[in-house]
Every structure is written in C-alpha cells, then in structure tokens.
C-alpha cells in the first residue's frame, strides 16, 4: 500500500476536528475564525482526496479496491465483528472528490451568506460535522459502519435544517426529515441484521461475492409466507436508501427541508446526502444484481419519482422548492439507471452501463445542482423573498450569476455540449439497450419537462422587467466566486469524465457482464430535441416577462393544476396518518389504557385491601362485652379446629 492511502484517515479527521473546535469553543468566540477553520479543513481534504483520486485512477486496472486502514470496533460474537475502516474503490473515490470539492465551495459561499447571522459559528461547526459523517459514509468498509455514518448524516441534516430553531416551520421540517429517514433506517437496520445473520459477516467485499449471493439465495418460510432471503434483505437495505434519497412515498421531507439555510440545501439536498441512497445501492450493486425483483423495484420507483417530481416542479412558485423537486427527479434518474441494468428478457447477464451511467450522472449533477442552489441563495439574499414571481429582470443586476445559471440550466436541461446531456444520455442508452423501453421513453419525457421548468425558473427570475424588490440587488463577492467556479465543471467535465466513467467504473466484486453495443445513434438527437423544445416552450410562455399566456394555460388545466401545485396533497395524507391515526388512534388510547386499566387495576387492588381494612375496623366499636363474646368465640373456634385437625 503506497503511503498516500495510509493517511486517508486525515480526510475524515480534518472536518471532525473543525466540528469539535467550532461547536465547542471557536464558534462563540469569533465566527470568522470558525469559518476559516472549517473552509481550510475542507480545502485540505479536497486537495488530498483529489491526489488520492489521481493516484487511484492512474493505477486503476491493477487494484480494483483498496482497504486503506481498518480496525475492529464492536465484536458481537466471535464470527461477527463491526469494523471502522476506509475502502477506496472507483465510486468511493469519486464521491470523496465530489463531497470535498462541493463542501469547500459551500463553505466559501456560506462566509458571504452567513455574514450577518448571529450564530454563524455554530453553522460552520455543524456543517463540518455533516462533511465528516458524509465522508465516513462514503469510505465505509462494512454495513455497520455505513449505518453508523448514515445515522450521523441524518442527525447533522436534522441540526442543519433546524438551524434557525426559532422558526417553527424549520423545526417541524427538521423533525419531519429526521423521522422519515429514521423510519427508513429501521428497515435498513433490519436488512443489515438479516444479512449479518445469514452471511456471518458485514464486510462489503465478502457480501459482494458470488458465494454470498448463493448462500442467501434460498427460500425460507416465515410463518405463513415463504420468501427468498436474498430478495427480502436486499429490498430492506434498499428501503434505507429509499428514505434517504427521498424516493416517491418517502419524499415528503425534501421539499420541506428547504426551510434550512440555502448553503445547507445546496450541499445536503442536492449533491451529497440525498445521493447517499444511490451510493448505497451502487456499493451493494453486485449482491443487488443477483435479485432481479429488487432491480425491478428500484427501476420502477426511480422512474415514477422522476416523472412525479418533474410534473410538480413545473407548478411550484418557490425557487428552492422548484430546485428541490428537480433534485428529486434527477435522483429518480440515477435510481432507475441502476435498476435497468438487467435485461428485460430476464436472462442472466448484467449490463453495468446503467451502473456507470448512474455514477456519471451523480458526478455531473452534483456540480450544477449545487451551483443552482447557490444561485438561488444569492438571489434570495439579494431580493429577500423566495417567490419567483416577485423576482424579475435580475440580469443586469447580477451578471455573473446570470451567465453561470444559464450554463447550469443548459446542462440540467440536457442540451448537448454541456455535462448534463452526456450523463443523461448514457442513462437513457442503458435503459433502451437492456430493453426497458417504457422507462427509457419516460426518461425522455422527463428530460423535456426538466428543461421546461428550469428555463421557466430562469426566465422568470432573470428576464422581464425589474420588480421593486430587485432594485438594490447586488452580487456579494464571497457568494458569486463559488458560483462561477462551479460553472467550469458544469460546462467542462461532461466529455472529459465520460471516458473515465464508462471505462474504469466497475462495481465491487465480479459480475457476469454482458457486452452491449456501445450506443444508439438516434438517442442523443431525440434527447437534445426534447431539451431544446422544453427551452422554447419556456421562452414562449415566460420569456418576455408577460405571463398572460402562462396563467391562461394554468386556468385551462383548472383543478388538476391546483392538485399538482399542492404536491398531490401527500403531505396532508402523511400528517393525517401520523397525527390522526398514530397519535390519536394508537398513542392516545395506549396512554388512556395505561393510566386507567393497568394503573386502575393497581389502584383497584389497593382499594380492595382498604375495603377489607374498613370491615375489620368496623368491629372495634368499643363494646367490651362484644370483645368478650368474640374472645369466647375464638376459644371455641380454636378447639374445633384442633378437634378437626387432630
């Protein structure tokens, strides 16, 4: 092991120290030093991880995965031990680079954003905690370690979303985020324990192997239903990812998570945390790929979420909510691209192009989505409102932000030269190649929708005439530099990284791969046409600042428009379920039951004894002759008992 890897624990330790120092001491003293420390820590680990990436990819074919360091943390019994360590393989190194770079950008950005916030020091502390736990999650070597950091990521997102804890809506949003992800993590833990029990190990390298899959791949009857252990455990583990990556039914927390400060949503809800679910599926891809049922579920869930989120995004008016739903739909993309890797006809082989495409999209999406959120932050900071209808004509006021946002919208819309197009194109290619035509076509439609709502956002905020709130908008230098810096990878990395991803990215452990023809000629053309058409429709409706046609269109849709606007009332359903059903129908009766029945029984026993006491007391009424009478009675009684017993 060359020494470059043996110090990889530094990447983890740097943000942790920043967290400790900031939250315990420096944060309160002066927030600038705290900001400096956390940015320096992140920059350091960014440089170091880029170096590791460089070394790793240059020697790649030699060693697929390296365990940099590892030590025992928790022994359950002699066979089963949980370890803490660092596993470097293509996806984890890639994620290392993405997280550290994005985190540095966000740190720089938050210096500007948090300038006048009293508790800025605490913000930087919690941000470093988040980076520490995310990095820990990415380099995990076994299921328990990934679960440990999974929970830490959950908690840090709880702390960051609820950063302005005086705002009730932020507090509720953070609680909702934590509980929903916690709900998914319970199933994840169950999946871990089942795999740990069946395979007698938690380590990824042992799990992602053929004999592990065979040993799990047997039917077991649980009470009345018979079930395949491999399918059950993989689905349970996937549910963990399902909650964290906010797939369809568990997506409700992501739009509300926008309550947190914008740098938080830029790092957590665009690039890193929500991608954890996809990373988990990618990490366990080999074992997942042995159960086609799980892959189908992944594909179905991903595809539906993509469509569902894209449709809602078109109707939202809050800038951050639009970006949140666009993240949801892009996550759907990445998820279903992992799902479509097995051929629809059901024969053995796995087409790992889907896996590579998903990772490539994770890589590209991280940059432009983070930049979009930073832009949203800058705009909100300038005009002090989230509502896009109140913004307008910021083109002249914020030129740098304007041009970099244009680049990002083009990228996400899938317009050819930029990075978004390449990764989305690979995903659609993977789905069509393995025969999933429906999913592929839905992907194309969603591509069009994405372009539409992104450019709707773009035109409404930057074009049209300057509204009164935008008069004194200005560009803070601390905030604009990261936006511009991020524009570079948004434009550039598309074709540079394509060869890397398609060439060297192979999942942990070996898979029976099927070689597929490398590309369909018609696909890129159709995809870019969908993107451009989305752009044009957006230009027609919103380009010139008069929204008459747009509002007319939305009236025409009528009721269905309002339903979509309210996110299909899913939040209300969840509230109903939790408050009405769980709290009032389950918790309240239990509370009543406890205080009345169980407690009541205890009090009843007490009351009965008290009653007997009263009866006996009744006989002490001070009549001497009664006492004498009872005395003689006792005497005769004893005699009879003696007579009977003898």
């Amino acid at each position, binding site marked *: 092991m060359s020494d470059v890897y043996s110090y990889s624990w530094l990447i983890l330790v740097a943000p942790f120290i920043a967290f400790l120092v900031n939250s315990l001491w420096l944060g309160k003293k002066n927030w600038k030093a705290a900001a400096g420390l956390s940015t320096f820590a992140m920059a350091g680990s960014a440089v170091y991880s880029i170096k590791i990436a460089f070394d790793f990819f240059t020697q790649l074919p030699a060693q697929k995965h390296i365990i940099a360091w590892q030590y025992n943390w928790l022994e359950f019994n002699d066979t089963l031990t949980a370890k803490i360590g660092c596993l470097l393989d293509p996806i984890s190194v890639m994620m290392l680079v993405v997280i550290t770079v994005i985190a540095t950008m966000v740190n720089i950005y938050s210096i500007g954003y948090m300038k006048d916030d009293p508790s800025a020091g605490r913000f930087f502390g919690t941000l470093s905690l988040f980076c520490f736990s995310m990095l820990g999650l990415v380099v995990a070597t076994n299921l328990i370690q990934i679960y440990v950091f999974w929970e830490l990521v959950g908690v840090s997102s709880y702390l960051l979303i609820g950063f302005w804890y005086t705002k009730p809506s932020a507090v509720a949003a953070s609680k909702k985020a934590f509980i929903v992800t916690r709900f998914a993590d319970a199933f994840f833990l169950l999946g871990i324990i089942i795999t740990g029990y069946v395979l007698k190990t938690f380590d990824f390298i042992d799990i992602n192997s053929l004999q592990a899959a065979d040993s799990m791949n047997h039917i077991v009857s649980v009470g009345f239903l018979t079930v395949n252990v491999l399918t059950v455990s993989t689905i349970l583990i996937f549910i963990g990812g399902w909650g964290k990556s906010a797939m369809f039914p568990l997506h409700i927390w992501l739009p509300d998570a926008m309550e947190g400060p914008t740098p938080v949503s830029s790092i957590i809800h665009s690039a890193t945390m929500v991608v954890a679910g996809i990373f988990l599926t990618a990490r366990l891809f080999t074992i997942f790929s042995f159960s086609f049922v799980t892959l189908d579920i992944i594909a179905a869930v991903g595809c539906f979420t993509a469509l569902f989120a894209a449709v809602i995004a078109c109707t939202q008016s809050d800038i951050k909510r639009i970006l949140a739903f666009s993240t949801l739909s892009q996550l759907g993309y990445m998820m279903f691209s992992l799902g479509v890797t097995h051929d629809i006809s059901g024969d053995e082989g796995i087409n790992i192009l889907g896996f590579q495409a998903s990772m490539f999209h994770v890589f590209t999406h991280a940059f432009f989505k983070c930049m979009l959120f930073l832009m949203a932050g800058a705009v909100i900071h300038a005009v002090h409102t989230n509502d896009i209808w109140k913004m307008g004509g910021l083109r002249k006021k914020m030129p740098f932000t304007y041009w970099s946002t244009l680049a990002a919208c083009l990228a996400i819309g899938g317009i050819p030269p930029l990075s978004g197009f390449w990764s989305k194109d690979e995903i659609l290619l993977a789905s069509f190649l393995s025969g999933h035509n429906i999913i592929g076509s839905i992907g194309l439609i969603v591509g069009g929708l994405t372009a539409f709502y992104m450019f709707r956002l773009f035109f409404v905020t930057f074009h049209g005439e300057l509204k009164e709130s935008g008069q004194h908008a200005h560009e803070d230098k601390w905030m604009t530099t990261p936006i511009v810096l991020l524009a570079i990878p948004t434009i550039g990395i598309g074709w540079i990284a394509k060869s890397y991803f398609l060439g060297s990215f192979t999942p942990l452990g070996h898979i029976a791969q099927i070689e597929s023809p490398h590309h369909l000629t018609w696909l890129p053309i159709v995809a870019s046409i969908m993107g451009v058409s989305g752009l044009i429709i957006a230009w027609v409706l919103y380009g010139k600042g008069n929204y008459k046609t747009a509002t007319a269109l939305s009236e025409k849709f009528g009721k269905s428009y309002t339903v979509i606007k309210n996110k299909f009332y899913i939040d209300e359903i969840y509230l109903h379920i939790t408050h009405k059903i769980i709290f009032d129908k389950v918790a309240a009766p239990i509370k009543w039951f406890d205080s009345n029945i169980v407690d009541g029984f205890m009090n009843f026993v007490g009351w009965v004894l008290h009653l007997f006491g009263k009866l006996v007391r009744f006989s002490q009424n001070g009549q001497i002759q009664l006492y004498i*009478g009872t005395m003689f009675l006792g005497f005769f009684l004893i005699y009879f008992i003696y007579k009977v017993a003898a």
Partner: protein
Amino acid sequence: MLSSITIQDLFFFVLSSVIIFGAIMVVSSKNLIHSAINLILCLFSTAGLFILLNAEFVAIAQVMVYIGGVVVFMLFTIFLTTRLGEEHLEPLFKNKFFNGTILVMAACWVASFIPSVIDPERDQTFAQNASLTEVGARFLDLRESGFIVPFEVISVLILVAMIGAIAIAKNDNDPKNKDEVSN
C-alpha cells in the same frame, strides 16, 4: 337411689342449689345491692361446700377474704357510684335471650366432657384433711415441694395491687378537673 343418700349427699344438694340460686339472682336482680347480697349468700354456700370437701383452710380464707374483703369493698363502691333513685339499666332483651341460649348450649357442651374425666372406682380416695397446719407448713416449706416462691410472689402482687388501686383512685386535686369533684 334414694336409700343410698348419705348426710353428705344431702348437704351437697342443699348447698349446690343455694349456690346456683344465689348466682342466678346475682346476675338477674334489678337492684345492685340485692345482687351483692346474693353474691354473699353464694360465697357462703361455696365455703360450706369447701368444708364438705375437707378444705377448711380454703373455706375460712374464702369467707374472710372474699366475703369480708372483696364483697364489702364492692358494696362501698356501689354506694359511692350509684346516685339514689337511679333507674336500673335493664339489658336489652335480645342481648339477654341471645346470650342465654348460646351459654346454655356451651354449658351443656362443656358438661359433656365431664364423663371423660370421671373414673368411678379410683375416685373414692377421700383426701386427707387439708388442715390449717399442713397447708401453712407446705406454704413456707423450703424444700422442693414447698410453695415458698409463689407465697412471696403473691405477697408482692398484693402490695403492688394495693398501691396501684390507691394511686388510681386518688383524686389528684389537679385544678383542671376541680369543678368535677365539687358537684
């Protein structure tokens, strides 16, 4: 059965009937003084019975201590505590009847044990006369069979009882219940 009655039996029947009659009158008489007098009568006849059973010392003691001391003492207390003309406290009929029946049954039940104690042939050992000197000697006898220790204990007991009675009955001229004593 009539022919075999001896003087002793005759005396015994007379005395026992007087005892029982006295006892019933003690219990049921309306006026306390009548019941006290009947008590004296009953005690006298038991003393007679003791003499019949060759226990002169006990008879004499009975007459002196019981009748001379205790009953007379009771008469004094009666005079002290009952204001003249006070109506007699008639016990409730239901108490009387109830107690009566129960106690009669109990008496018969206890009496039913007597045959188990009787052993006709060996019972006729007429005890030697427990005369005054013998009893007195046995009382103070230092040997093992003697009753010296109970004798001492009894004397202490009597002393204590006397002091106790006086202490209780002493009307401590505590000002608090001054008025009580005056009326």
